[in-house]
């Protein structure tokens, strides 16, 4: 009996021996999640939209290129503004589809101005 029990312990130890234990702390998880980046990028895109921005503005190219090179994040967005994309008499709202992906976290937003 003792022989069998010690043998099972032996195999459990083999499993532990072969696996590498790595810990991730809570603070590390908080740092890794790009909460401020997402808030910031959606804020600046909405600001661009509310200033009657267009996709051909330098701001769009600025946001897409600088995000990729300095932040390592793929960012893109569309703009459909009242008076520019559609008739303001029919619909007074502005719309934007925002996409963000930094390789770890992906975020998509379908924004409608109020």
């Amino acid at each position, binding site marked *: 009996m003792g022989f069998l029990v010690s043998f099972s312990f032996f195999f459990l130890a083999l499993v532990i021996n072969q696996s590498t234990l790595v810990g991730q702390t809570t603070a590390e998880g908080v740092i890794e999640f790009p909460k401020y980046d997402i808030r910031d990028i959606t804020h600046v895109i909405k600001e661009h939209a509310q200033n009657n921005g267009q996709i051909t503005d330098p701001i769009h190219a600025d*946001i897409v290129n600088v995000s990729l090179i300095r932040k390592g994040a793929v960012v893109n967005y569309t703009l459909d503004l009242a008076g520019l994309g559609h008739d303001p008499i029919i619909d007074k709202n502005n719309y934007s589809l925002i996409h963000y992906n930094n390789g770890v976290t992906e975020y998509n937003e379908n924004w409608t101005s109020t």
Partner: protein
Amino acid sequence: MVAEGGQLYTIEGVAAALIMLTTAYLVVGATAVYTPGDAHISDMQMEILGSDALKMMDTPQNFTDAKSPLRQIVENDDGPTFWKMFNNTINNRSGLFPDHIQFTANYTYRVPSDNSMNSSFLNASRNLTGGEHAVRVTKWVIVTKTLPPGAGPAQDRAVLMEVLLWRD
């Protein structure tokens, strides 16, 4: 007379003991990367502090003043005002002595002719030596400025404010 069954028990005991010793050896030899639970808490706090400070500086001071202090700082390349405002925000605390968080700040913009990046230094409380354990915080700002300088009229551009923060 000694019963012969006793010998078997002895052999089993010795074998079991040997296996248990090998087990202990395997467990001790297992690779474990140990991360202390409080390793990144100060980094996290510094990142939150810096992000909040930049967010606050990018808020217009009142309804009629449409431009935020951070926007004015970038548009005028006003390093001294940035130093004063940012340093007060991150280092002031209750009590007699301020905190001693150091920073270096620059903003990055796209060069329209070839889509390359250009960084413009704003201000720093201390020079980087390379040994700091710095945390990077960023903030997008829309400015009306000629970027790069001297290339045509001023227009609306998005620039990325980047600040490195560290404690020494």
